[in-house]
């Protein structure tokens, strides 16, 4: 049996290892991560873990005993090179790991804010447990919190600290929140939600500098105004970690390029999760997604291939974000929809937005409406669509899908 080395111990890397064992893989499984300790969940870092509701020991995806029991070797180290001729991965401490199959689950890193002062104390990102710990320490003494970027991470963080009673300002460069991920109706709903809880949201806000000596004291905008700040959180998107793959001569194009079975052009190397660009049947071109679902389903697809029958990747993308008491669930891909129909009652905090492209349902965004979300996942999995004329008041999407899918 082939020895599998997995570089990257996030959700995708963990799942590749776990699924390989679940599907009966007998060879060695080595999981290489550059953080100490067992692999952990990231979604709670901006929510329950940040607020202290989820204790650190529950952050682990599995306890150490799981890795011992299943013979999964955890290696703490940073991979710095791949020798594809000799099938070896080099680590920064000069160790080498020999592989029969190599899986790259290198994920992404936070995009850096390209302005003077971005490295001041009190300017933080949120990706790792260490980041969340640093933020927790800072939150206690903070008076003026500024969040740069109105995407999922920035808004989840803003909601968590607003709940603690802190005043927060969210700066968004575009004209609406979560622009890249949701329809205008959902953006508007979340703006109201945050503002109602006392958070200030500024649009068209372009940050030109961060002020301060050693510690950050303010955020300067393009119009010359300076917002006082003693804690700045930067959430302006991510960059895939592709250097290792590119240096090894593998194809890279905003991600590590793989086929529909997660293989790179080298049959001994695969890539899954946030770092992989793959041909999706739910998108019109190559796709790279940043989500737990994508990481887990990619990993399962790959583990199936490595242990038996190859099947093309076909999972329906879905996402979630919890902010205050609003539970946003998205099924499908709505980025280039041309029509959006709101169903339900936004004022009551429970509605779904049905997004169509050229008359075909491509995405359903649900706020506190899990039945719609699950029905959408079922419908998309079955390859079905929806006649937009049906979306009248009183239409029950869940019942409709139960009848047709």
């Amino acid at each position, binding site marked *: 049996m082939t020895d599998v080395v997995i570089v990257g111990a996030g959700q995708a890397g963990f799942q590749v290892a776990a699924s390989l064992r*679940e599907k009966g893989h007998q060879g060695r499984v080595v999981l290489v991560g550059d953080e100490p300790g067992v692999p952990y*969940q990231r*979604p*709670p870092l901006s929510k329950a873990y940040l607020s202290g509701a989820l204790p650190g020991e*529950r952050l682990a*995806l*599995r*306890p150490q*005993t*799981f890795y011992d*029991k299943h013979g999964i070797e955890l290696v703490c180290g940073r991979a710095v090179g791949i020798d594809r001729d000799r099938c070896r991965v080099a680590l920064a401490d000069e160790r080498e790991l020999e592989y029969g199959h190599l899986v790259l689950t290198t994920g992404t890193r936070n995009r850096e804010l390209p302005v003077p002062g971005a490295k001041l104390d009190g300017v933080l990102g949120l990706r790792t447990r260490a980041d969340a710990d640093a933020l927790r320490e800072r939150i206690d003494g903070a008076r003026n919190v500024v969040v740069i970027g109105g995407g999922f991470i920035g808004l989840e963080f803003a909601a968590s600290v607003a709940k603690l009673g802190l005043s927060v300002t969210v700066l968004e460069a575009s004209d609406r929140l979560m622009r890249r991920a949701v329809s205008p109706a959902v953006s508007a709903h979340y703006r109201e939600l945050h503002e109602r809880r006392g958070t200030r949201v500024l649009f068209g806000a372009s940050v030109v500098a961060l002020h301060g000596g050693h510690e950050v004291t303010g955020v300067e905008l393009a119009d010359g105004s300076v917002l006082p700040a003693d804690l700045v959180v930067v959430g302006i998107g991510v960059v895939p970690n592709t250097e290792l793959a590119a240096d090894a001569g593998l194809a890279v194009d905003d991600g590590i390029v793989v086929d529909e079975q997660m293989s790179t052009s080298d049959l001994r190397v695969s890539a899954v999760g946030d770092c992989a660009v793959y041909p999706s049947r739910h998108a019109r071109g190559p796709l790279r997604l940043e989500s*737990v*679902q994508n990481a*887990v389903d990619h990993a399962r697809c790959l583990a199936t291939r490595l242990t038996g029958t190859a099947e093309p990747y076909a999972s329906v993308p879905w996402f*979630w974000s*919890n902010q205050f008491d609003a*539970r946003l*669930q998205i099924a499908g891909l709505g980025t280039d929809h041309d029509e959006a129909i709101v169903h339900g009652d936004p004022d009551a905090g429970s509605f779904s937005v049905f997004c169509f492209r050229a008359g075909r349902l491509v995405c359903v965004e649900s706020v506190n409406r*899990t*039945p719609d*979300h*699950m*029905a959408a*996942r*079922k419908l998309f999995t079955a390859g079905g669509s929806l006649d937009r004329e049906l979306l009248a008041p009183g239409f029950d999407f*869940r019942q409709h899908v*139960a009848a047709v899918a």
Partner: protein
Amino acid sequence: MPKITYVQQDGSAESFDVQAGMSVMEAAIEAGVGGIVAECGGNAICATCHVYVDPGQIEKLPLPQADEDAMLDNTACPRAENSRLSCQIEVTEELDSLTVTVPEEQ
């Protein structure tokens, strides 16, 4: 501490003493019980911690909330009358000796 028993499809069973307040899913993850994926970490969002509760004991559990009910419509293995998401079952002293069966697939 309440004892929870997890039964696999091949009939094998494991029992654990579980601290009250934990969910049946969390206890399974901590004990390394196979077949419970819990992709979303226990938010009733992914439907990958589906279990079948012993039919004779289902009455002991509060009815599922609307979110859980909706999730159960889309589990990998068919929903049954005793289907629940293990992340939504909080272990209490009253649930001592609860038995759940893990489905073939999540």
